[in-house]
């Protein structure tokens, strides 16, 4: 597909998702409380959208990922929270 066809197929949906994302940030910033690691990772991931590379989805996923290589000593929960809480 050419760019025009991709816009015809996906632009309105992407626009909708972008506004939803903006509204989420407004909602978050209206609320009180300290910023945690999830939002720090989120802001790093958002920066990837304005870079010129052609693997933005991959880079966003990497921004949220645990970059370490060693197994953890024990699993204390079953759930994932969406962002790595550690510090590089």
């Amino acid at each position: 597909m050419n760019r025009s066809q991709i816009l015809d197929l996906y632009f309105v949906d992407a626009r909708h998702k972008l506004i939803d994302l903006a509204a989420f940030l407004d909602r978050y910033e209206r609320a009180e409380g300290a910023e945690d690691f999830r939002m720090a990772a989120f802001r790093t991931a958002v920066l990837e959208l304005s870079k010129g590379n052609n693997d933005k989805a991959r880079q966003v996923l990497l921004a949220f990922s645990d970059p370490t290589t060693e197994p953890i000593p024990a699993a204390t929960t079953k759930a994932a929270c969406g962002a790595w809480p550690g510090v590089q």
Partner: protein
Amino acid sequence: MRYIEPHAHMVSRVTDDYVHMVTAGCAAVCEPAFWAGYDRSSAAGFYDYFRQLTEHEPKRAAKFGLPHYCWLCINPKESEDVKLADDVLAIIPEFLDRPTVLGIGEIGLNKNSRNEITVLEKHVDLAARHNQLILVHTPHLEDKLKGTRLIMDVIRNDSRIQPGRVIIDHVEEHTVQMVLDAGLWAGMTLYPESKCSPARAVDMVERYGDERIWMNCACDWGVSDPLAVPKTALEMRKRGHSAAAIDKLIFQNPARFLAQCPKFKIPEG
């Protein structure tokens, strides 16, 4: 249109889902062993679950003319308890010769802990000793990248395992390339809120090719869509992919992988 649903937890679904899947063209469904949403209290609970997967569920699917196959294991979410895992691993061989059991799965990692790796290694050893196919679950969200690397290390370290007989499921844009480069199969799981959307799945096919890739819905007791595979076929049609290209991805590819187990009969289209 015909398709194979290679990963669906049908014990968690209502009968209407079978009706909808068959109506949409599903020709066979495969069910990996999964976490029940709570921890089972003993291996006896797994024994009953394996009977459900190998006896009851194929009968339920057969009422709609749908062949039902399964995979057996203790899921990574319950692998922190190595003693429980050992007890479950001990009863799996009793079920491996049953006519609808395709292999060991979905094994893998959840939080990437040492005990989870120990249990993964034991499952891989079980698969190697019994010449079974392997279906691997990769961790969720922030744990997926690290977990996929650790899982691939375990598989690479067992020289008895042929990469072409292993599928690494739930790949996303940051893991698909490494899986394919290793000669393994890659599964793309189509979820409404996490893992992969239909549009992103088709993006990956366009980018990385359609060899050694399948798509699945992995529908279970959580937010999931049993019709995600045919909906992704529709996404491909919107982009102009041919009927033959769609058939390769959603029918021929899973058939090719699954038919490595002689018990899997390729359904008539």
